[in-house]
């Protein structure tokens, strides 16, 4: 047995400022709301003070975006593409800096921010840069909408920014983006990158703040398009706010995905897929495979293998290159995960975690699985958004489909079987925006992503992602 010595990625590369302003019309400016602190969830250390945008500040940002819209949308697509390519390259050049900052502010392991988030962020900008001068072939016309108001979550701060900003800009829109209140730092570094890329002032504006700032962005009459990723609860509020205004909306909301394992599945890879499905990013993933549906005939074997595998997960310092599970993003989220897990126990499901020491400071939750879960348990219905897996069983493919679909959500699903025809049969019947076969949590900018039912509407990514930013 050899213990891995600590292998921390250096923080030196990140130049943290004591305070950050709003980014409006190409300049960093003060906010008129009360500044707030953003903390490192792994240590509870304050990283920086961040300005809070009031409704007036949001108004300034929207006016800046409106003013910039004419020039930006008037550029030939090939010219807009140049800016996007330039941004993509700068992101690659500064990838390590962005990855470290993301892990500091969000709590996710550096291995994930380095190997998943940042490569995907750059890939999104490259991908949509390629579309900018080919919009006439996409089938949605070439007319942009105007000013896009975008509100993004804290689980993939920079990646969600890329999903929103890249297609908006490629289509000729300008944006006002509000990052999540607990993870504003990489968006503000992106603001700096957009200056480095000499993006015209006002094309990208970043307003930081909490729910009220987001509400102001969504409600602003000069915003032509609203894009939101986050909870279903807030998604409903937004849908109500924009109803009847003529604003175009896309919502990417919660999920309670089923990861379905048949008895002929490649077991070792299925175990990896289950681990990746629910413990990737501490389970802070809207498409997380939070319900494991396993065929009853292999339940015992699979659970034994899964438990053995969970014993090897390394929880701790997000900046350590060998960490698999980082910190929960906030005290508030940790409280929610705890209370739902307690509900799981009190409703009679059996709780299990591997032996796992939690750091004393910071927000932490051990990888947890619940067995003996029934469809009627709270933990099988509600999105936990944490490293908590509910294990249910099924007997036949039809029962698997029925249970998988029996949720108000419909964002993603996973199917594990060596039988190709069964994969197709399942994919046809699963009401989920993405169905992964013998893999999970695979993302590509060319592939559309979005939900059924309460998981939202509209698609992001791929050719389909252009529709949301064009006047079709």
């Amino acid at each position, binding site marked *: 047995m*050899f213990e891995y*010595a*600590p*292998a921390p990625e250096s923080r030196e590369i990140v130049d943290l400022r004591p305070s950050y302003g709003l980014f409006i019309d190409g300049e960093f400016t003060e906010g008129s709301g009360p500044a707030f602190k953003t903390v490192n969830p792994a240590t509870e250390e304050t990283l920086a003070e961040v300005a809070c945008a009031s409704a007036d500040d949001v108004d300034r940002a929207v006016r800046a975006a409106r003013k910039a819209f004419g020039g930006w949308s008037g550029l030939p697509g090939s010219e807009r593409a140049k800016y996007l390519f330039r941004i993509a390259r700068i992101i690659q050049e500064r990838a390590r800096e962005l990855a470290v900052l993301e892990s500091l502010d969000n709590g996710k392991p550096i291995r994930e921010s380095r190997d998943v988030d940042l490569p995907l962020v750059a890939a999104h900008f490259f991908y949509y840069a390629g579309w900018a001068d080919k919009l006439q072939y996409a089938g949605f016309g070439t007319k942009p909408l105007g000013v896009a108001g975008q509100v993004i979550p804290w689980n993939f701060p920079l990646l969600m920014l890329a999903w929103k900003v890249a297609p908006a800009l490629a289509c000729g829109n300008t944006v006002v983006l509000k990052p999540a209140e607990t993870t504003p730092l990489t968006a503000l570094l992106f603001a700096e990158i957009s200056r480095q890329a000499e993006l015209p002032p006002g094309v990208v504006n970043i307003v930081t703040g909490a729910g009220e700032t987001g509400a102001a962005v969504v409600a602003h009459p000069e915003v032509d398009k609203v894009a939101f990723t986050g909870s279903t609860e807030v998604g409903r509020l937004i849908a109500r706010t924009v109803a009847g205004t003529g604003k175009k909306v896309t919502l990417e909301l919660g999920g309670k995905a089923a990861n379905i394992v048949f008895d002929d*599945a490649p*077991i*070792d*890879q299925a175990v*990896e897929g289950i681990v990746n499905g629910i413990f990737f990013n501490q389970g802070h993933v809207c498409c997380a495979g939070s319900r494991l549906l396993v065929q009853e005939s292999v339940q015992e074997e699979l659970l034994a293998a899964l438990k053995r595998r969970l014993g090897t997960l390394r929880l701790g310092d997000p900046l350590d*290159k060998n960490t698999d599970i980082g910190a929960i993003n906030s005290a508030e989220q940790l409280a929610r995960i705890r209370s739902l897990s307690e509900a799981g126990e009190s409703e009679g499901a059996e709780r299990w975690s591997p032996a796992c020491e939690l750091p004393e400071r910071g927000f932490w939750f051990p990888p947890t699985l619940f067995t003996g879960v029934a469809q009627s348990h709270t933990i099988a219905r509600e999105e936990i958004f944490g490293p908590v897996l509910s294990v249910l069983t099924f007997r036949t493919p039809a029962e698997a489909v029925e249970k998988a679909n029996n949720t108000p959500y419909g964002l993603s699903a996973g199917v594990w079987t060596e039988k190709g025809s069964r994969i197709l049969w399942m994919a046809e019947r699963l009401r989920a925006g993405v169905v992964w076969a013998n893999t999970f949590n695979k993302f590509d900018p060319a592939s559309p992503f979005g939900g059924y039912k309460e998981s939202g509407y509209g698609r992001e990514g791929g050719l389909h992602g252009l529709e949301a930013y064009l006047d079709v």
Partner: protein
Amino acid sequence: MTTSLADVAASGATLRAFLHGLPGVDRVGADQRAAMLGTRSIKTTAKARAIDLAISMVDLTTLEGADTRGKVRAMCVKAVRPGGGAPRVAAVCVYPDLVPVAVEAVAGSGVKVASVATAFPSGRSSLDVKVADTAFAVAAGADEIDMVIDRGAFLSGDYLKVYEEIVAVKAACGEAHLKVILETGELVTYDNVRRASWLAMLAGADFIKTSTGKVSPAATLPVTLIMLEAVRDFRDRTGRQVGVKPAGGIRTTKDAIKNLVLVQETAGADWLTPDWFRLGASSLLNDLLMQREKLATGRYAGPDYFTLD
């Protein structure tokens, strides 16, 4: 052994049914898992321990037509005392006719003598010749026999032939430990690697080994991963522990450490000793010694400071 496994080799049909009933391996997923484990960052004290552990697991090998007594003797000296205070390696691996030379050269050191046998590397001869080849090496004093399976028989689906050959060679080994080389580069698919691993273990292999070193690709990380899963699952099922030896293409300290990470996070710490995990290699040893020196002194010494044998 459970009764179900005792009857597995009752006929070609039962053996086939068993091997084809093993869970499949998804290539994309297996590659991904191996690549992820390859990103583990092993630094400072952990690296120092890993380097010494890796040295102690090396089967220092020379398998050339041009091998001579002098060449083997020199290699054995290095195996016993790699230099710089490094631990001795696990074994030397030579052709059968050079076993007596190696036995004499490593006598009393604890370094084992392994010999390839069974019409190595292709395995294309009669069973009698293979058994005789094995008996010759054992009589000469080999502690370990590295046999090759009949890949032609395996690929044509004649699993029973492969099984019976391993059983026969195992009998000829007597006290000597038997390592069964699957030559995974010729089996190609990961499903085949898993089946061949189980086949060898069922037939009595003490170790399963990836490659002869004569075929490329040899010991890739995903193949070693799948073999580690197989020995882990076999022990769960039967209680018997089988060792793993990746061989061929492991040239750098980085490669060696990736293998140790794979062992630790797949089969577990029980396999992290020279009794249960070996690295078949020749040039690897000098790279391990070089990195060892670098960790101790903070400087890289030139290649001339490490002996070539």
